[in-house]
C-alpha cells in the first residue's frame, strides 16, 4: 500500500504528511500529527467531537480523507486561541461552566467559531440547530447555548 | 439499649428475627454480640451490607460508636454511578 504525500496548511502552518489512501483526516491529525485536541466520539459523523474546518467550512474530520487535505487550509481546536490569549468563545465557555467532562468541548469550540464567523448574531434556535451535530451528554446544552450567546455579544462588541 | 433492625434477606440468618435490642457502645461490640447469638452472621455482614447508625449510612463500620438510644439498620450496599 503506497502512502500518499500531502501538502496542507494546519492552523496557518504549512504542514506535510504521509497517509494511507483510506485514512481519515481525523486519524491523520491524531495519529500522524499528534494533534489530539480533535476527539473521536463515533467515527461516523454523528457526534461532532472531531469537528474541524477545511477551507473555512465546518466538517467532521472523521468523514474527510487525509488525502483530501492536499492544498487545503485545515483549522482545529489548537488554532482557536490567539497565541497566549484565549478566544472569546473559549473564555465564555469557561465563565459559563459550559463544559463538564470536556470531551465535546474542542468540537464545540470549532463549530461555534464557524457559526459566529458566518452569523454574528444568531437566535437561540439558530444556535441550537447549528450545533445539533455536536453531542454533549453532560450539560443538557443549557450553559453551552448561554456561553455561545454571550460570546457572540462579546465578539460583536469587540 | 440500642435497637437493631435486620432487612428481609438477613432474617434468614437471625432465625426470622427482624429486630432486637443490644447493649453495646460500638459497632464492633454489636458484631460480637450478633455473632455469638447467630453464629456465622458476621460473614454475612462484614463487607456485604451497609449499616445505618442513627440515619448515617456507613460502608464497613467498625469502631463507630452506638449510643443507648441509637437505631442500627442493616441495608444493601449502595455505591451509585
Amino acid at each position, binding site marked *: 500500500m503506497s502512502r500518499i504525500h500531502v501538502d496542507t496548511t494546519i492552523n496557518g502552518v504549512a504542514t506535510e504528511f504521509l497517509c494511507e489512501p483510506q485514512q481519515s483526516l481525523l486519524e491523520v491529525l*491524531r495519529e500522524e500529527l499528534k*494533534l*489530539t*485536541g*480533535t*476527539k*473521536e*466520539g463515533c467515527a461516523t459523523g454523528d*457526534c461532532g*467531537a472531531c469537528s474541524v474546518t477545511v477551507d473555512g467550512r465546518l466538517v467532521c474530520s472523521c468523514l474527510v480523507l487525509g488525502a483530501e487535505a492536499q492544498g487545503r487550509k485545515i483549522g482545529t481546536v489548537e488554532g*482557536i*486561541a490567539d497565541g497566549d490569549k*484565549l478566544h472569546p468563545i*473559549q473564555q465564555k465557555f*469557561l*465563565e459559563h*461552566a459550559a*463544559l*463538564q*467532562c*470536556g*470531551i*465535546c*468541548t*474542542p468540537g464545540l*469550540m470549532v463549530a461555534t467559531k464557524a457559526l459566529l464567523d458566518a452569523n454574528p448574531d444568531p437566535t*437561540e434556535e439558530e444556535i*441550537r440547530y447549528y*450545533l*445539533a451535530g*455536536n*453531542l*454533549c*451528554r*453532560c450539560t*443538557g*446544552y*443549557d*450553559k453551552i*447555548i448561554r456561553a455561545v450567546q454571550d460570546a457572540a455579544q462579546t465578539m460583536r462588541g469587540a | 439499649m440500642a435497637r437493631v433492625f435486620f432487612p*428481609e*434477606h438477613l432474617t*434468614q440468618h437471625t432465625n426470622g428475627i427482624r429486630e432486637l435490642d443490644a447493649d453495646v457502645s460500638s459497632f464492633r461490640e454489636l458484631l460480637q454480640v450478633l455473632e455469638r447469638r447467630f453464629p456465622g452472621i458476621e460473614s454475612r455482614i462484614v463487607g*456485604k451490607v451497609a449499616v*445505618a447508625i*442513627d*440515619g*448515617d*449510612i*456507613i*460502608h464497613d463500620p467498625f469502631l463507630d460508636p452506638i449510643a443507648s438510644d441509637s*437505631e442500627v*439498620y442493616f*441495608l*444493601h*450496599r*449502595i*455505591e*451509585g*454511578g
Partner: protein
Amino acid sequence: MSEARDFRVVGTRPIRPDGVDKVTGRANFGADFSLPGMLYAQVLRSPHAHARIVSIDTKKAAKMPGVFAVVTGADFPRVGSEEITGGEGAGDYRDLATNIMARDKALYHGHAVAAVAAVSPAVAADALAAIKVKYKVLTPVMDLDAAMADDATLIDETLFTAGLPEKPAKPSNVAAVMEMKRGDVEKGFAQADVVVEGTYRTPTVHQGYIEPHACVATINQGGQATVWCCTQGHFDVRSASAKVLGMNVSDIRVIPSEIGGGFGGKTTIYGEPVAILLSKKSGRPIKLVMTRDEVFRASGPASATKCVVKIGAKRDGTITAMSAWLGYEAGAFKGSSMAPGAMCIFAPYNVPNFLIRGHDVLVNKPKVAAYRAPGAPQSMYACESLLDELARKLDIDPIDLRMKNAVEEGCQAAYGPKFNAIGFKQCLEAAKRHPNYTKALGPGEGRGVAAGFWFNAGMQSSAEIHINEDGTVTVIEGNPDIGGSRASMALMAAEELGVPYERVRVQVADTESAGYTNVTGGSRVTFATGMAVIHAARDIIAQCKQRAAATWGVDAEMVDWQDGKVIPKPGVNAELKPLTLADIAKGSPRTGGPLLGRASLNARGAGAGFSVNMAHVKVDTETGKVDVLGFTAIQDAGKAIHPSYVEGQMQGGAVQGLGWALNEEYVYNADGVMQNAGFLDYRMPVASDMPMIDTQIIEVANPTHPYGVRGVGEVPIVAPLAAAANAVRDATGVRIHDLPLSPPRVLEALDAARS
C-alpha cells in the same frame, strides 16, 4: 457538625482550574496517550447473542506480518468465584473476568472472544478476520418474560436463585430475589378508598458518554504494569485488573487520564487487563480503544425493567399501602441495580404498609453497569407515574398529593433508617410556588410533575495538601474530575485556609501518588473527598498554629487561626505580627520542614437527595411526536459549593432522563443483535431537541458534612422519566406505560384511544 456560617469563596462561581486545557485541546483524554513502540489492539467479538464456543483457531492470525500477540480466554488465569464488595450490582470477580474475555460461552452479541496486537489498526483488523471461531449457536434469551418463563433456556446452568429461604431445586435465569416489607400490605389496601395499579416497562439504555473506553498499558519483564486509562476510579481499575490477572495490586500502577463522561459506565473494567496481557505477550506497549459500536454492544448499559406497582389511598390522599413487583435485567451476568431500585421506589413517602419484591434476571445482553442513580429511574418512573394517576382519580393536585405523604426529618425511610435533615418538602413547596407550575398551557400541551430520590454515597477518600514555599496551595486527591470537581476541591481548600481560590491548584493523582479513594460516582466526590480536603486543610491549620507558636516562643494554646493567619490570643505579646500561610511556609525549614496536611476517611452520613421536576410538552397528535417546551429541575443540594456545576448536574441529568423517556432504547432483532449501535439511531437528545432547563437549588444543610454538602450528581436523572410521561398524559389524556414515548408508540396509543 455542619456550621451555619457565611462562606467567603464557597458558593461563588470561579473558572475551573483545568478549564483552559479543556477549551484549547490540551487536556489528554483516554485515547490521547501514546508510547514509543506502541501497538494497536483490537478485539474479536461474538456475532451471536448466545452460543457455545466450540473452538478458536488463532494460528493464521498470529503468523501474519505486523501481528505481535493474540490472546483468548485460555490465556487468562481462571478466576474463582468471589463477591466484589463494591456497591449494588458489583457482582463476582469470576463473572467480571468472563465478561472481559469469554471462555466456553459467548453470552451476548459483542462478547469478547479474542484480541490481537499489531503495528496498525488496519493490520489488527486483518488479523481479527483471520481468527476462526466455531460456535454452536444457542437460543438467545432477550427479555425478562422470556428469561423467567418456566421453559426458559438457561444462560448459566449452574445459577441458582439467591435470596430464597433455601436453595431451589432447579437452576434459573433469576439470579436473585429480594423482599422488603412493612406492616400488612393487604390490610393497607383494604383500608384504601382508592386503589390504582399499573405495569410499566423501561428499555435497555446506555449512559452515552461521548468518549469511548480507552487505555494504554505496558508491563515489563519484572511483571510491573502501568496503565493509562479513562476511568471513574483508577483504584478500582487496579484492584479489578489485579484480580482478573492474578497480579499483586502493588504491581499495577494506574494513571487516570481526563475522562470524557462516565455516568457510572466507567466504574468497571473492560480492555485494561486485555491490554496488559497483550503487552506481556508482545513485549510492547498496547493501545486499546473501543469503537462507538463496541461501546454500545459490549460496555455496560442500564437494566431494562418491568415494574408492577399498586397504590392504595384514602379520599384525602393519605397513602395506606403500596406494593411493587420489580424485574431488572442484569445482562449476561448477575448483578443488576435491582436492590437500589427497590430501596428507592417508595423512599420519598411515608407508607404504613408496603411489600416490594425484586428480581435480578439474566438475559443475553451485555452485563449492565451503573448508570446515574442505578436502578432508581426505572422503579421511580413506575411509582411516580402511578401517583399521577392516583392524583387524577382523587382529583388532588399532584404536588399536594406528594406533600401529604412526603417524608421529612425523623421519618423512617422505606429502606430502613430514619432520615436526618432532608429537603423533600422544601422542593415540593418550591415547585408549587414556581411560575412554571402555573404557566398557561397552549393546545396540545401538557405539564407533568414527578419526584426523585437518591441516597448519595460516602465511602473512602484521601487528600493531601502541600503548602508551597510561596504560600500557594497544592491539593492532591484521587477522584478523576468529570464535572468540575477540581474547582469544588479548590474552593473548599481556599475556604478553610483563607487563601484566594486562584492560589489553590488541584492534582488528580495516580494510584501510587494519592491515597486510596473510591470511584468518582455515587455523588460522593464533593461530599466525601471534599470532607477529606477540608480535614487535610484543618491538619495544615493545626500545624501552622504550632509553628507560629514555636516561632513566637509561646504555647500553642496562646495562638489562634483567623482568616488565613495565625494571630496571638488577646493578652499575648502585642508586638507579635500575625503570620500568614505564606510567612509560615517561608519559615517552614526552620520550624520542622515542609507543610504537609493529610486526611483519609471512610465518610459516613451522605445526605439523602431529593428533587422535584416539572416537564412542559407539546404532542403532535397526527405524528405522535413529543416536543419538550420547558423543563424545571428543583433539587436539594445541601450546600452548593460551585453553583454552576450543581446546576450543570441538574440540567445534564434532566436531558439524559428526557432522552430515556422519549427516544433512547436498545433495538434488538430476533437473533439478539442490537440494530441501532450508533449515535445515528440510538438517538440521544441534540441541542435543538431541548429547551433551556430551569433550575432551582434548595439548600438544606447535610448535618454530617462540615459545609452541609450532600451529593447532587445522580438525583437529577431520576424524576424526568415520569415527569415527561405525566406531561404526555396531561397533553393527550392517554397514559402510555412503556418507555420510550417514541412517536410510533405515542401515535399507536392515541389512535387506539380515538377508535
